[in-house]
């Protein structure tokens, strides 16, 4: 099942609708790294509210997405991890290190605004 990627202003929102197979995760990773350049996006929000399990492969892919997007010059934030999922993740030792996570999409957009505003301050001509 393909993950729809929505363009919302300067951000991309990937909204996961159901459990993902490994191949779907790879496809999501490729699509995001591709489109972040196409749309000159400043940030990527991955919404995993609908996922009731995040296994090691999913976590690794999410970390990879974050690193790749950073190399493409944008920020990544994972939103909507369920309490139960979070707890089973840490029990399995999957900690998504180095990846920003916030509660839900709303918080994710706020986070992005803060981050990109900070980046804007450092730019020329602003």
């Amino acid at each position: 099942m393909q993950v729809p990627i929505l363009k919302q202003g300067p951000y991309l929102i990937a909204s996961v609708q159901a459990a993902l197979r490994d191949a779907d995760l790879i496809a999501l990773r490729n699509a995001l790294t591709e489109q972040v350049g196409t749309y000159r996006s400043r940030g990527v929000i991955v919404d995993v509210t609908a996922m009731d399990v995040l296994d090691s492969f999913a976590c690794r892919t999410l970390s990879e997405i974050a690193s790749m997007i950073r190399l493409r010059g944008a920020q990544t934030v994972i939103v909507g991890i369920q309490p139960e999922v979070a707890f089973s993740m840490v029990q399995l030792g999957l900690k998504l290190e180095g990846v920003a996570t916030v509660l839900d999409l709303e918080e994710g957009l706020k986070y992005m605004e803060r981050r990109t505003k900070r980046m804007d301050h450092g730019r020329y001509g602003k």
Partner: protein
Amino acid sequence: MSAARKVTRRPGAEGGTADVFPELVAHVRKNRTRLREEWAHRITEADMLTVMTEEEIATETTSIYDNYVNVLETGDVEAMEAYARNLSERIIPRGVETDEVIGIVLLLRDVLLRSLLEQSQCRLDLLSRMLDAFEPAARRITVTVAAGFVHERERIIRQQQDAIRELSTPVLPVREGLLILPIVGVIDPQRARQLTQQLLRGIRANRAKVVVIDITGVPSINSTVANHLVLTVEAARLLGAAAIVTGLSPEIAQTLVTIGVDLSKMNTVCDLREGIEEADRTLGFRVTRMDDSIDQEKGR
């Protein structure tokens, strides 16, 4: 109590018991003061009930003695049961042990037996009939008192366990985006689990950004629980909330370092106050005293 009634009309006793019983009760009743005093004396001698004063021992022994005689007379242990429960309720909180309670009842049995021995004047047949009558009732009383005491103890333990489970862990919203999780008492793995789940649900329900976990009230911690705490902090981060752990006692700090739990990712500050200040900084709140700000405004 039906068993006790049966005791008085045991078929094996062949009618002899029934004759002896009134005599027995009369004897025990007649010598009430002397026997009770002897009993109280022997309790003190055996260093039992040390938490109670002389007068208290006197009152209690009188009540127990009367109850005892009553059971011997009627064979009905119900009143004794009620009294044992009542007594246990009063003395358990004062630290009276099971062996003391059983000990004093056995002492009374001993005192009464000795007096019966004297009474029978070494007439073996009479003594044997008295023993037949006395022994089952005495045994029954001992069992009743001991069981009453133990039941009372267990009831208290159960009650306390329930109380602990109920008051386990409130998750308190303090300010917008700030939760406080005060942990009091010993944490076992089951409780730690429940605690984490409550915290994570609380974070989602209150949309918290910062969580202050206060463990001032935790006397000790082991590696399982410490690791669980680390997991809780990580899980909170996955929900977008930063955790601040406050109130680590020197003992706990030493334990954690000795057992080698990696706390490098945990934000720990010394006490709850510091923790809330740190949380306010993170959330962008500034707390000012009312008078100061009024003074400042006047000054302008």
